[in-house]
């Protein structure tokens, strides 16, 4: 694994009027081939500006972006397109173009003035189509595709450029969860199989934590933090970057939890799927779940998951009631609260 894209003392931002508006500075980071990296950060931290600067779309305010040992600004647009490809959020408004032709546009930096494909180009286009798994879409018109299918087609097109680096700017936004999972796994596989460096900016913390080789976290006004996901969780990098008054990153589960106003403590006995979802329901309603025995309220789960489940509520040590759904459980707890 070698460094393909390197940022040196990079300051990114945009020029407004006479001055420049610095969004993030002092960025020292590198992308290696075969690696799938996710860039995370709260809204307004400058993910998009950073990613567009790394892709050579924006100019840096200072510092360098180095691709294959050369500053990115030294490449002609054609040479750059042979090394670096991009996938963006916006859906292109082409209706009457077959998927194959759109993927074939990825051969743009290699073809002659007419854009006609050589047999070799055609083969590369098919390889890209197969790598992304959209063979059955190849003859369809782009206008007929769903959002998820269209993004896959755009990725195949980016792959047909045979890049060393593929940069995706929130390319999974607007997709439903299964489609997003599919794309994350696809990108990780492409990075490995095609030995390219893949950088994706995303808001999908959970998926990034589970699938990225490295994470870059860009906190608002801070400097970029780089590391493998688990290290960053343990170092508290997520909490530092994303926490705000109502939302807290829970290191144990690797997800964000909302701090609801607390209605008190509840002890919970029981494991498995029922345990997980009972805990979720209690948390959502605003109860803090503890394991201590001497809580004023205790809930015992019995039965398998599914229809036979039962929740026994104990008040101190006295059994209070037995309910058969979480909805009933929450209602009971609520009415007990009101009575007290």
């Amino acid at each position, binding site marked *: 694994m070698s460094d393909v894209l390197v940022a040196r003392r990079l300051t990114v931002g945009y020029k407004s009027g006479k001055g420049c508006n610095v969004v993030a500075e002092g960025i020292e980071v590198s992308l290696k081939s075969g690696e799938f990296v996710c860039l995370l950060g709260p809204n307004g931290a400058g993910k998009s500006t950073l990613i567009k600067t790394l892709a050579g779309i924006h100019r840096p305010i200072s510092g360098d972006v180095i691709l294959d040992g050369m500053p990115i600004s030294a490449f002609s647009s054609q040479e750059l397109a042979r090394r670096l490809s991009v996938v963006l959020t916006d859906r292109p408004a082409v*209706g009457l173009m077959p998927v194959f032709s759109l993927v074939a546009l990825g051969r743009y930096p290699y073809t002659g003035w007419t854009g006609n494909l050589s047999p070799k180009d055609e083969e590369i286009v098919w390889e890209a189509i197969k790598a992304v798994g959209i063979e059955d879409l190849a003859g369809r018109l782009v206008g007929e595709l769903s959002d998820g299918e269209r993004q896959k087609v755009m990725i195949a097109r980016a792959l047909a450029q045979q890049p060393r680096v593929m940069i995706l700017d929130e390319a999974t936004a607007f997709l439903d969860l299964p489609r997003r999972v599919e794309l994350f796994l696809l990108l990780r596989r492409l990075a490995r199989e095609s030995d390219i460096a893949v950088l994706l900016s995303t808001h999908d913390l959970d998926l990034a934590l589970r699938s990225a080789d490295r994470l870059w976290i860009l906190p608002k006004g801070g400097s970029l933090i780089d590391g493998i996901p688990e290290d960053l969780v343990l170092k508290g990098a997520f909490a530092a970057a994303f926490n705000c008054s109502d939302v807290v990153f829970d290191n144990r589960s690797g997800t964000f939890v909302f701090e609801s106003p607390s209605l008190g403590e509840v002890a919970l006995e029981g494991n498995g799927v029922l345990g997980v979802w009972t805990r979720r329901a209690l948390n959502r309603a605003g109860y803090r779940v503890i394991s201590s025995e001497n809580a004023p309220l205790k809930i015992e789960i019995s039965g398998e998951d599914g229809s036979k489940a039962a929740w026994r509520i104990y008040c101190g040590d006295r059994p209070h009631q037995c309910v058969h759904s979480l909805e009933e459980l929450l209602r009971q707890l609520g009415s007990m609260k009101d009575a007290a």
Partner: protein
Amino acid sequence: MTQSSESFVLPASMSVPKNQPLRWFLLGVLLITIFLLELCLGSVMIPLRDILLSFVSPSDVDEKWREIIFVFRLPRAITAAFAGAALGTAGLQMQTLFRNPLAGPYVLGINSGASLGVAVLVLTAWNLGLPAFFAKTGFLGNMAVVLASIAGAGTAFGIVIAFSRRVQQSVTLLIIGLMIGYISNAFVEVLIQFAVEHSIQRFITWTFGSFGGVTWIQLRVFVPAIVLGLLIAVIMMKPLNALLLGEEYARSMGVNARRTRVFIISGSSLLAGAVTAFCGPVAFIGIAVPHLCRLIFRTSDHRVLVPGVLLMGAILALTADLIAQVPGSRAVLPLNAVTSIIGAPVVIWVIMKRRQSLEV
């Protein structure tokens, strides 16, 4: 996933419908037919036999007919064919550059600039006592209108191209073009307010558009200008395809966005400017023809569409001119009335027929 790449052999043919060659052949036949009809029909009918004969052995054809064919109808048909091809091609390029299905050859304000140029000449010349001069030298008068139009179109083009170097996104140019149009029209209105009646009549006649009155000598300027503009469009086919995905994607695939924009704007301005200079602001062909071609060829690929709009534009312009001349009568309809009456339903039909045609 286990299939080998040899099992996929259809790509090139897949991007276009299978009976594509037949469509090209039919369009070609249609163009030749309408071109010949344009020579045959008019206030006087000339049989097809005599038309063909006049090219082979002119001495066998009635001298009056020969004059009608060579002095009037042939230059007119050539003008219509080239103007139609030019407007269709310019419209296609503007629709793709701005990713806007309603864009046409005149969105950059080229025709408004031209009309201001012509208005200045025609509307103020009368006040300056030049009508006698115009009346005496009909040819020079015509040429003066062409030059005024070129000057106006050139000024508008200069303003747009100056801005195009400074703006990030092409869409901004669309707004600048629109504003140039408003400003030009404002000046034209002021000029009309203070002009005498015959000069207003003459100016309004110019705004109706016409493929007639272009002489062989003028064609020596007109045709090469259009051919140059069409060549630029042919060279731009590949970047135009990339631009279908938007400017950022195009740039990421190696398109030099600014240079491409300057080329496309210059080429289409040349096409639109030349047509406006010699034929007046011919409406609607430039918007309708690209949509019609997308519908016929079912593709957004400019390698098909550029030759397509060229043929289709020529066909539509000739058809409109044929109708405008009301064959068999002495009456002549304003060309723009005819192009709009044909063009608007075409656009509506295309839009109703295919939702995706709204996308470019």
